[in-house]
């Protein structure tokens, strides 16, 4: 895939506080990229820099190999779906969607055709004459998407577009957005703090924290191979522990040595270790690699969330079996379930 956008060492500060600390990132054609991170991590700022609404203090933004830092937003081939939609309240659905085309002075018939086609794509046929203020949140959302996409941009920016919708609608829209992206075949850059949303829709996830990129990878990479404690903690639930990498394939934690599949670390290096709750099995005490007592079991729908206490820590385990509280049990996991990470700041 062709590289479409490149951020080079983007630094941005607001009133002395550093929001972006040198971001380097490439985004390709037809890619669905998600910028994921907690609020205040700089993801929206990065998106706004690309949209042209704010400018960086340092660094360069390239679009199709052309530096666009000094190009005003109205001259960029990028369109945005704003956080709270930002629909024009004095216009109906049709006029909102047609806005960009009218600015480009396309002829009336073309505009009508394109708007109709776009409203069909977002499932809003027959809503042309409705005032946008009378639409539901989900419908406004669709108008915002149609209004941006009708301009046939090369890149669509989406700034937490589903944040204001309820859970069910959000899930539907996630699937729909992914479908739309595949249909129109353009680059989507999506900002969210919702890790599940990111895992569902993205080709590539960029995990950010405190103005820095923590990891770039596919959803499975990010989930299964988190690069550090922050990523492991932010994406899904995890048991994160500290240990020592004795030598290749051997890690020690909780005063026990375990076999693992990771290698290439320095001998005796202190590391962080991730064990996903669904990778740990509760077994009879004599078969376990670690022994503990079940402290609690919470029904979560698909699974139980079980907390097992050992002398060293509490483990979170997801299991579909019902377990007895206060029972002594063993915990079992395989070498490939242990994921070793460098401690933050040491790589």
């Amino acid at each position, binding site marked *: 895939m062709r590289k479409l956008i490149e951020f080079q060492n983007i630094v941005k500060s607001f009133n002395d506080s550093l929001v972006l600390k040198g971001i380097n990132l490439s985004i390709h054609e037809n890619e669905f990229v998600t910028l994921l991170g907690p609020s205040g991590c700089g993801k929206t700022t990065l998106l706004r820099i690309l949209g042209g*609404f704010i400018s960086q203090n340092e660094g360069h933004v390239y679009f199709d190999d052309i530096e666009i830092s000094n190009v005003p937003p109205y001259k960029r081939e990028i369109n*945005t779906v704003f956080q709270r939609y930002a629909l*024009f309240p004095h216009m109906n659905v049709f006029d909102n969607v047609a806005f960009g085309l009218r600015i480009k002075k396309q002829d009336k018939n073309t505009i009508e055709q394109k708007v109709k086609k776009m409203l069909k794509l977002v499932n809003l046929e027959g809503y042309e004459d409705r005032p*946008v*203020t009378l639409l539901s949140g989900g419908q406004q959302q669709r108008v915002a998407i149609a209004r941006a996409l009708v*301009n046939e941009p090369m890149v669509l920016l989406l700034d937490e577009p589903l944040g204001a919708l309820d859970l069910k609608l959000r899930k539907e829209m996630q699937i729909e957005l992914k479908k739309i992206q595949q249909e129109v075949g353009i680059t989507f850059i999506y900002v969210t703090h919702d890790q599940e949303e990111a895992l569902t829709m993205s080709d590539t996830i960029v995990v950010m924290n405190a103005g820095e990129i923590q990891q770039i990878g596919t959803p499975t990479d990010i989930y299964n191979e988190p690069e550090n404690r922050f990523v492991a903690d932010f994406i899904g639930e995890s048991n994160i522990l500290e240990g020592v990498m004795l030598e290749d394939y051997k890690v020690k934690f909780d005063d026990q040595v375990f076999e693992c599949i990771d290698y290439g670390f320095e001998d005796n290096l202190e590391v962080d270790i991730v064990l996903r709750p669904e990778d740990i099995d509760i077994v009879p005490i004599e078969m376990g690699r670690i022994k503990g007592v079940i402290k609690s079991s919470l029904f979560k729908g698909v699974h139980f969330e079980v907390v097992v206490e050992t002398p060293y820590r509490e483990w979170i385990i997801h299991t579909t079996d019902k377990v007895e509280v206060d029972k002594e049990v063993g915990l079992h996991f395989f070498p490939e379930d242990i994921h070793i990470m460098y401690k933050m700041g040491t790589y």
Partner: protein
Amino acid sequence: MKGYASLVKPYILWMSLFIVVPMLLIVLYAFTEHGNALMAFRFTLDNFMRFFDPVFIKVLFKSLEVAIITTVLCIIIGYPIAYIISNTSERTQTLLILLITLPMWINMLVRTYAWISILSDGGILNSIFEFFGLAPIKMMYTDFAVMLGMVYNFLPFMIISIYTVLAKLDRALIHASHDLGANPIQTFLRIVLPLSMPGVISGITLVFLPAVSTFVIPKFLGGGQYMLIGNLIENQFITVGEWNFGSAISLIMAVIIMGSMILTRKIDRDASDTASVEGGKLW
């Protein structure tokens, strides 16, 4: 809540005594014949008929003309100021709005007197002209002086009512417009201006209504010859002692003012029907 409802009674009494009764008296005077003898009312429409004299109609049109020009000037001057203020930082906004409202803390009469000492033949402006060797200009008692006084006095109302709407305007809408390819001028014409119309319209009401009935400004800056409808009414009551005729003119003015209020409200409602709800209304 019910217990508090009776608290409104003193206000009703107050308002009846000092607002409703005087207004009824005006109506009474307007429809009755000459004289202050309380017991000798005689119904007549003569007071109204008298007004339809070319001399008085001319005064009415002059008043409307001055008020309309004042309003238009206030829009032309006030809109850009309101726009610029709404685009500054929040702290600057507070400061500038304070500066604009500051003169209103001082009585209008005093401010108008101040203009006299600026504009008069030996006043500040002419002294400056003289200093630069320019011939003195006659400014007092001209249309210019009256218009200046009017715009000066009523401009803050226009600025503030437009500013209130502009300040509430969602910045994201402007970003969205830029995002869709509209340059700053297109964005202003298609987004900012239509969405700020409710502010302009309430500004028109706030400026036009007092401007059409003012008598202090034309009296001081226009001189004794400068006759607007407000001065005419004042004269009838104070100088001539024709309370009945004065009351009739007041009523005619009231009808004109009410009519223009209904009209502006209607325009506003039509505008906001298409402009929908969020534009921010001041009434």
